[in-house]
């Protein structure tokens, strides 16, 4: 009953707004703008934020017209912090387009809903996407083509790598984008009432957190080369004899959690960057840390 009423109301509102419908061309155009320009202005403060606007540009122009209040709202909405893995995370942009479309046509979607979805999904999809793309697909492709390249085989080396990498990833990211848009359209009702979404979100968030943890363990690379020369023949290795006995990976874990803590304390990323560089320089300068090589 209540839902039916909602539907009726919406339909009325949609009629009032003369129902601006996006064409497939708009969605596709937006996709290509994303794939080319996602990180043109990549920066430590907001990362891909202006990339989002650049990509949504054809959509927003059509929905809100230039220099209107609604456009201003939309721009302020999307200029916030955003960062994800561009291929898999594209699905969020697809959904966002669908939500903007519904919103412009009067559905009761507010900025919080859109931002909730964007920020809720960007992290998990960054973790999962980085793992599947940079962490899995590229190493596989390289391990197939690199041997040819080292024999001087141009075709089965660099060219095959380029074709496979870009071919596979473009097909994937295009489909993922369109999927996001379609699910977004079908799902707005569902999203608003909330049935499957919380499960998908919770699953993605949990998996994302685990995977990000795994990435930290693999790619933050700090060990202590320090030793205590206790006598002519007794040497204590801080890394092996102390730290590894406590918790394997305690240094990278500590550094990552410290960084996280600083960001949580509202330090700007550029400040944190400087802190990390100084910390690294000082500790390495005294020979207390290094890489595992």
């Amino acid at each position, binding site marked *: 009953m209540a839902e039916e009423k909602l539907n009726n109301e919406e339909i009325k509102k949609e009629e009032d707004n003369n129902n601006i419908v996006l064409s497939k061309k708009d969605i596709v155009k937006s996709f290509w703008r994303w794939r080319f320009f996602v990180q043109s*202005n990549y920066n430590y403060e907001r990362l891909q934020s202006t990339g989002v606007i650049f990509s949504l540009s054809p959509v927003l122009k059509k929905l809100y017209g230039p220099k209107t209040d609604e456009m201003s709202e939309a721009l302020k909405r999307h200029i916030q912090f955003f960062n994800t893995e561009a291929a898999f995370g594209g699905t969020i942009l697809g959904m966002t387009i669908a939500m903007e479309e519904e919103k412009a046509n009067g559905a009761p979607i507010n900025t919080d809903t859109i931002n909730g979805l964007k920020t809720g999904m960007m992290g998990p999809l960054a973790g999962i996407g980085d793992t599947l793309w940079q962490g899995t697909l590229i190493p596989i492709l390289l391990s197939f083509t690199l041997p040819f390249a080292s024999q*001087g085989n141009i075709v089965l080396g660099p060219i095959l*790598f380029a074709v496979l990498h870009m071919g596979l990833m473009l097909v994937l990211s295009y489909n993922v984008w369109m999927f996001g848009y379609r699910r977004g359209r079908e799902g707005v009702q569902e999203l608003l009432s909330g049935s499957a979404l919380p499960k998908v979100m919770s699953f993605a968030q949990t998996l994302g957190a*685990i*995977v990000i943890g795994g990435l930290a363990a693999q790619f933050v690379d700090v060990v202590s080369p320090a030793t205590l020369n206790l006598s002519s023949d007794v040497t204590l290795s801080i890394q092996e004899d102390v730290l590894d006995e406590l918790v394997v990976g305690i240094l990278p874990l500590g550094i990552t959690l410290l960084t996280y803590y600083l960001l949580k304390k509202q330090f700007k990323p550029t400040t944190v960057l400087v802190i990390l*560089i100084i910390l690294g320089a000082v500790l390495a300068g005294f020979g207390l840390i290094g890489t595992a090589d």
Partner: protein
Amino acid sequence: MEIAINPIQAFLIGIVYYLGIDGTPWITHLGNHTWLRPMFNGFIVGIILGDPVQGTIIGAAINLPYLAFISAGGSVPMDPALAGTVGTALALGANVSPSVATTMAIPIGLLGTIIWIVHMTVDTTFVHMADKAAEEGDIRKVNILHVAPPQIFLFIISVIPVAFAVYFGVDAVQWLVDALSGRPLDILSAIGGILPALGIAMNLRAMNGSGKLIFFLLGFLLTAYSGLPILALSIFGAIIAWIWTTLDLKGEY
């Protein structure tokens, strides 16, 4: 056979580097990620210097230590694109063996992180300008700010040093590498080793969900103790996430 590198070639090689930076729009973001692999940009540098086969061979050698290279959350712990372009050019120019080229390429790659950090820091100013345009609802201006100033700036700070390096050649670079070797290089690589923490922590901060830090810790420790490859971890992670989600949301929706 030694190849003398002329100014135009040096400039072109600078552009090869610029195109291999994660974010330059001309060849798509996926294009960057192809182009930044030494195997590939070595091949392009080879074309410019007239010996693509040899360029590919050298590039492939330089590529090896970057096999598992990953950039997460905007962190670049080392720069394979710089290692590949400069390394290949010098190796072809000085007729140096691939293995010597690789040895030189590692410190060079570390220097690339400096260029990356500078550009990601400077770009914050353009997003502040964009804030004003957003206030006015001026999407055209936001779009221009998104592309023109950052890319012009990036072009300058990436093309010039590379062009100079490959033009003045192996001796100049060798001098630089020598000057760095030892403690300075150790420091640079230590910094490169901890910087991914920034990207990962930014991603992590952007995430929500109950138990986020707990599951982060779990993923970290599982990997640290088991040495699981990342794909296997993510399958185990998916199982755990499914169990957690099923039980945590039980009876809620």
